[in-house]
């Protein structure tokens, strides 16, 4: 694995982690909101 590919993979993983963090924070912030439906995340491999 090349260095640039490792960097690209790490950046992609960081982006996925950031999206997951945004989802978790949205769920926690709306834990007391009436009628809020918990959002879920599905990670999948790119096509």
């Amino acid at each position, binding site marked *: 694995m090349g*260095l640039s590919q490792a960097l690209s993979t*790490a950046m992609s993983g*960081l982006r996925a*982690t950031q999206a997951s963090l945004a989802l*978790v924070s949205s769920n*926690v912030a*709306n834990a007391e*909101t009436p009628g809020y*439906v*918990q959002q879920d995340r599905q990670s999948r491999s790119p096509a």
Partner: protein
Amino acid sequence: MPTATSRSTRSSRTVSRPASCSRSASAPTAASSATIPTAATSTSPKSSVATFNGTNFLKRVDGGAFEATDESGQALFGKAGTIVGSSLEGSNTDIADEFTKLIVTQQAYSANTKVITTSNTMVQDLLNVLR
């Protein structure tokens, strides 16, 4: 033959005719005449909202259900509100579940930043090859 097909399409619900002609239009009428009596006989489940005069005297049974007693009176239908489908009364977020997901996310973040740090070190070492 054309008069028979026109009659079967007009009275599609009353009589199921034998498939004398092999057109594709006769197959849906035969299927609908076969499914209508079963749908009429089978009773679909319904849920309704009932109120009681003595709500505090209901008998608590297993599974979160309540049973009418003599003190509570019989169930009164039609005086309660309606059921709103596909809606929640409160939020269904589980805080503990979210925080366990947060721990997993934090570990994944650390792993990815470790990869970046290591590749940065490798690039620095590569630049130090030439002195």
